[in-house]
Structure formats: structure tokens, C-alpha cells
């Protein structure tokens, strides 16, 4: 009954795959030691145990806990000394704002009597209950605008790079190599480093931010778009080429419809990434929420930092939801 079957059926996991997996594990073990993965696991484990009340103390949990504790309560209101507000009109307060007066006793040396005298100083403050939240929102909007224009520049540079860099549409192999190299170069310069140089060239503000994000993500889009174009089903292209259609017609009718969902997903991801990186490059003075974050962090105003971090989180979450819907619509 068990007649010998002469055919050999290949197993999905063969000796070569196993050898590759073993080599990968060896590499992870070796590099893990160099980057102190063992210590990271020990310290993190201690922190978790300390939180659960099993271990006594944890250096990591203590350090992280005290910093995080300072982030709350988050700062929503803004308080400004009225004496320093130019052209202040008490009859025309901003919406929801009110004035608070604070009294402080000040001890001063009287130059005439050469005695220390105490006196009461009254300071009037303009308090806007959501003033700081609005300020953060305005800065966040600036970051979104920087990210938007960074992404627009990335698409405008990335698409031609991809059309030159994709093997199946490039007019010449030399152009392909050049375009791939240009994409790699743009990707190789991190936004933060590019922003440092661009701030020197263009000064503090959003121009440096827009260019830093745009150039770096153009390198990404140039590569991703090109890879998508190279992966398309070649048959519609071949059919049109056989019937003498021009290069642009083939791209527009046989390639673009196939790659559009991937192009849109990549572009949305680039925008999402640019919003996050827009917050980072603000640290070196390239405008937006990052500049505000750096200023508050340096002044140890962690309540303000908490507000900024929550604002960034909410924006990223919203963008993710919008991007997800957009991808669904273009599937």
C-alpha cells in the first residue's frame, strides 16, 4: 500500500533557512552584549518589580518617576505681568481672562537713611485660563505647517527622483544610478544635522525647518516611490508599449493607477514623520513646537513641557486616524 513516491516535496524550513536564522541569532547575541542589552533588561526588570512592590528600590523607577511626576499638573493657563504688557487696556481684556493682584513684601536698603525698610509691592497679573494651551496650539499649528510644506517639497523632489531611479521607467541606467545615489545622500543627512546647517544659512525660524524636513524626506520618497514603481505588474505597461504609447502615457495609465495606494500611504507616513521630526528640529531653532519645548525644558517648567507632549501626542493620534481613513478610501 505504501508505494514509494519518487517526488521530493520541499519543506518551507530547510537547512539554509535554519543556518541563516542561527547566524542572525549569533549576531544579535554578539551585538546585544556591546549595547548592554543585559543591563537594560536587569534595570527595567528591577523597575517593574519595584512598581509591583516586590523589590525595594529601583534607580530607574525613581529617576523616571520623579521626572514624570513633575510633568503634572500640566500648564494650561498663562499669567503675564500687566506692567510688562505694552498698551494694556483693563477695559478690553481677552476672552475669559481676569486680573489678579498679588502682594509681596520687599525688603530694600534706603539709600538716604542707609537702613533696610520693608514695603508692600502690589503686582497685577493678567490671567488667561487657557492662554498657554492656545499658545501651544498656535505653535503646534506652525509645526504642522512646517511638516506640510516639508512634505510638499519632498513629493516635488521625490517623484522625479523615483521616475529616474526606477529600473522599469528610467530613460537611462546612468540616470538611475545618479538618482538612487541622490536619494541615498538626502536620506543619509539626518534632519537635525541638516537643520543645524540651514539655521546658520537661513536664520532661526520655519524656513530652515521646512527645508530640513523636505530634503531628508525627499530622499525617503525618492526611494520608496521608485521601489513601488519597480514592483508593479509589467503587463499593462508592456501592452501599451507594444501599441506605441509614450513614456508619460504609460506612467500615467499603467503605472500610476497601480502604485497610487502605496504612494499615498508613503506620503501620509512622511507627513506623520515630518510632524514628529518637526518637533525635534525645533530644538535647534528651526521653528514650531520644538523651539517652545526646548525653552520650557531649559527653564525646568515641566508643567509646560507636559502640555506640549500631550499636544504632540493628540496631533499624532489624530493624524493616524485621518491617514487610516485616507488609505481606506484609496485602496
Amino acid at each position: 500500500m505504501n508505494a514509494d513516491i519518487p517526488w521530493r516535496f520541499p519543506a518551507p524550513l530547510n537547512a539554509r533557512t535554519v543556518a541563516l536564522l542561527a547566524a542572525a541569532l549569533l549576531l544579535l547575541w554578539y551585538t546585544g552584549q556591546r549595547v548592554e542589552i543585559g543591563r537594560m533588561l536587569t534595570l527595567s526588570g528591577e523597575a517593574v518589580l519595584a512598581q509591583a512592590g516586590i523589590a525595594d528600590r529601583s534607580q530607574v523607577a525613581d529617576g523616571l518617576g520623579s521626572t514624570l511626576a513633575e510633568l503634572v499638573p500640566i500648564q494650561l493657563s498663562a499669567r503675564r505681568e500687566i506692567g510688562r504688557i505694552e498698551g494694556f487696556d483693563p477695559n478690553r481684556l481677552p476672552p475669559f481672562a481676569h486680573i489678579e493682584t498679588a502682594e509681596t513684601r520687599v525688603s530694600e536698603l534706603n539709600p538716604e537713611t542707609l537702613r533696610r525698610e520693608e514695603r508692600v509691592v502690589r503686582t497685577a497679573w493678567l490671567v488667561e485660563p487657557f492662554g498657554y494651551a492656545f499658545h501651544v496650539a498656535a505653535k503646534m499649528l506652525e509645526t504642522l505647517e512646517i511638516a506640510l510644506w516639508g512634505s510638499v517639497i519632498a513629493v516635488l523632489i521625490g517623484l522625479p527622483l523615483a521616475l529616474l531611479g526606477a529600473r522599469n521607467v528610467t530613460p537611462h541606467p546612468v540616470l538611475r544610478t545618479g538618482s538612487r545615489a541622490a536619494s541615498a545622500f538626502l536620506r543619509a543627512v539626518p534632519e537635525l544635522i541638516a537643520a543645524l546647517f540651514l539655521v546658520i544659512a537661513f536664520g532661526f525660524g520655519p524656513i530652515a525647518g521646512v527645508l530640513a524636513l523636505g530634503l531628508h524626506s525627499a530622499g525617503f520618497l525618492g526611494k520608496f516611490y521608485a521601489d513601488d514603481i519597480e514592483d508593479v505588474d509589467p503587463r499593462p505597461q508592456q501592452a501599451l508599449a507594444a501599441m506605441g504609447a509614450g513614456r508619460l502615457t504609460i506612467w500615467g495609465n499603467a503605472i500610476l493607477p497601480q502604485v497610487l495606494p502605496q504612494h499615498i500611504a508613503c506620503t501620509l507616513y512622511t507627513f506623520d514623520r515630518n510632524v514628529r521630526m518637526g518637533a525635534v528640529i525645533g530644538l535647534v531653532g528651526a521653528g514650531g513646537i520644538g523651539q517652545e519645548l526646548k525653552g520650557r525644558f531649559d527653564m525646568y517648567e515641566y508643567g509646560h513641557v507636559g502640555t506640549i507632549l500631550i499636544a504632540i501626542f493628540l496631533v499624532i493620534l489624530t493624524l493616524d486616524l485621518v491617514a487610516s481613513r485616507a488609505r481606506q478610501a484609496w485602496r
Partner: protein
Amino acid sequence: MIDIGIADLCVRHDGGDQALADVTLYIPAGQFCAVLGASGAGKSTLLRAVAGLVTPSEGRILFNGTPLSHAQHRRIGLIPQDFALSGRASVARNMMAVADIGLARSFAGLYPHADRARAAHLLAGLALDETHLVRRADSLSGGQQQRVAIARALLHRPAVILADEPVASLDPATGEATLALIRDEARGLGATLLCSLHQPELARRFADRIIMLDAGRVIFDGTPAMLDGIGIPPRIRAVAR
């Protein structure tokens, strides 16, 4: 009017298999030439080589005595076996891509009146209507996609029609009507029609000439009447069933 000359054509696949071996044919302008053969006999390779999509390892293909130029590509109408439509694009966009009117006009849907009239005429002849124009090609059935591919190939009034099993996805009645439409269009245009088929009976009824391929070689080249005398080789008949 374009005639096709094929001299000592050899095509090897990437793996080194011989797909076509020493194929020499002359197809006069305006002739309906059916190519029969079992699966893997080389029918599609022959059509793809004539369309310029496969580079021969040896031999030449000449259109009116000259190698295929870009201008002559514009006079080819290709019906690929797998339809080769852009799945995510509408039927209208797939059809009009062949009109090659420029990207801006094409994206704006500014198709010339003559092209729109021709597309409507062809689609109606293939039992498709206006509602199909807006539908994505990948939302159509296999048979509908095949008919769109046929209409696309005929849109620009080609002088050479290369049809790779153009009725394979259609039921017998629709297949017959569709093949009749292709033949009539080709006659009307004075086009040379090279058409691979799996149905010997259709080839006998419609074609002016029948070529049979087996393992990349021509084993029969004659009129349907000549075939009546010697019969269809059993291997091809078996596949046709």
C-alpha cells in the same frame, strides 16, 4: 496595409528552454492567420515576439520589409492573453490610454470626439455599455475584461492586430460573435490579423490561413480546406476539448 515577414526566428526563455525554433513565415497584408497549438507550443511567444515584447535570440521580424519602428508600434493592436489592463484604472482610462493624447488631456478626460465615438462603437459591439466606462477594470468579470482588452486594441484603427487567445474567457456563443467582430474590424481596416486560438473549429471557420505550432516549430501551414484533408493532430484536438 502592413505585411509581416518572420525569418529564422528563434526565441529562448530565460531558463534556456527553446520557445520558438526556426520559425519562418510570411503573412500578407490583410490576412487572417490563426495560430493553433497545445499549451506551451509557442503561440504566445510568437505573438509577443511580433509585438516587440520578446527579443529573439536569432532571426528577424519585418513589417513591410523593415524592423519594427516606433511609428509602426503605433499601428499595432495587441490583445494579450491575460488582458493586461490596469486593474485600478477605469475602463475608459484603459481604453483611451491607447489614443495617447497626452497626460494632461487624458487626466482631464478631454478625449477627442472621434476616439469617444469609436470606443462607444467598439464596446457596444462587444455587448458592453456606457455604465462600464466608469467601472474599475478589476471589478469586471474575466470575460468583460477580455472584451475591454479587445476594444482597446482596436481603438486606434491598427494595421496589425495581434490577438492572443482573444476568446478564451468567453462562452462559445459570445466567443464566436467576438471573433466575428475582430475579423470584421480587421477586414474593414485592411489589417493583418495574427490570432492564436485554442479552438480549431473557430480557426477553420474564420481564418484565411492556419499555422500549427508544436514545441516551438511550425508543423502545419495552410488553408482551412487543406486541414480538412489531413485532420487536426490529436494533441491539439485534446487540448481544444
